[in-house]
């Protein structure tokens, strides 16, 4: 079977919307972060697919930077989760509803 760029775009968008629904729907902070990582993976799929379609290395270099940023953002997000757990003893996103301090 032959795979075209359109199949790659459909797959990338499908994984992106799955992560998007996960961010909207889940109550656990950890799962929300995991859904964000899913979205970033979908973006990388898109970049690599177009890199091959255009025979250009720029897409792959961009993907390396996206992975770098995702790693940094995951670290900060997990540090925030630990802070929240220490203060409130909860991982529920609905409990993080006061803006003070």
């Amino acid at each position, binding site marked *: *079977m*032959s*795979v*075209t*760029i*359109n*199949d*790659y*775009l*459909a797959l990338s*968008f*499908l*994984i992106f*919307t*799955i*992560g998007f*629904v*996960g961010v*909207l*729907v*889940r*109550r*656990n902070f*950890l*799962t929300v972060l*995991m*859904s964000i*990582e*899913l979205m970033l*993976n979908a973006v*990388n*799929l898109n970049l*690599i*697919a177009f890199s*091959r*379609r255009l*025979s250009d*290395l720029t897409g*792959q*270099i961009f*993907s*390396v*930077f996206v*992975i*770098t*940023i*995702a*790693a*940094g953002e*995951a*670290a*900060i997000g*997990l*540090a925030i*989760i630990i*802070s929240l757990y220490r203060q409130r*003893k*909860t*991982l*529920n996103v609905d409990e993080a509803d006061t803006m003070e301090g």
Partner: protein
Amino acid sequence: MGGELLTGLSGGIFAIFALVAVVCAISVVLARNPIHSALFLLATFLMVAGIFFLQGAEFVGAVQILVYAGGIMVLFLFVIMLVNVQRLPQTEPYQKQIVAAVVLGFVLNVLFDAQLVLEPIPGGAPFSPDAFRTAAGRVLGNSQAVAWGLYREYLLPFEIASVFLLVAIVGAVVLGRRSVEKMD
């Protein structure tokens, strides 16, 4: 018309990777236990890395496994074990709007796929594998080619990314401190 990115057996392997990746992604979102979500996410990362390797993006595939599967997933599992999810009060895993969100996602996908079917992006020039492996006019390998791009054309984003990682390290250390009073 050289529109295909992958043909034959590679296309079949891509279909398997894609199917497993989508099933694991849905399981990440739907699993009740965060540990299950983390393991399904790990499987998704490995499937995506496999798709990268199929495309000839070997360096990015290796970085994906090293950083995502080997770094970020370890971070997630550490935090899950640190937080000890069993002792937390069991709440409903999904918000009230789950049906609306799933319908929204489904509608978005249908619209996007309809657009792709009505006006598919045309295939381009036939792909020669050496396009991803040439650096300085010689065929060396994908890592060398990406390195030549990273350190010459894209040197500024590379340096900015390293500063960003420093900021992330300092931020994570500051956010992870126990309390301000105990530092002297």
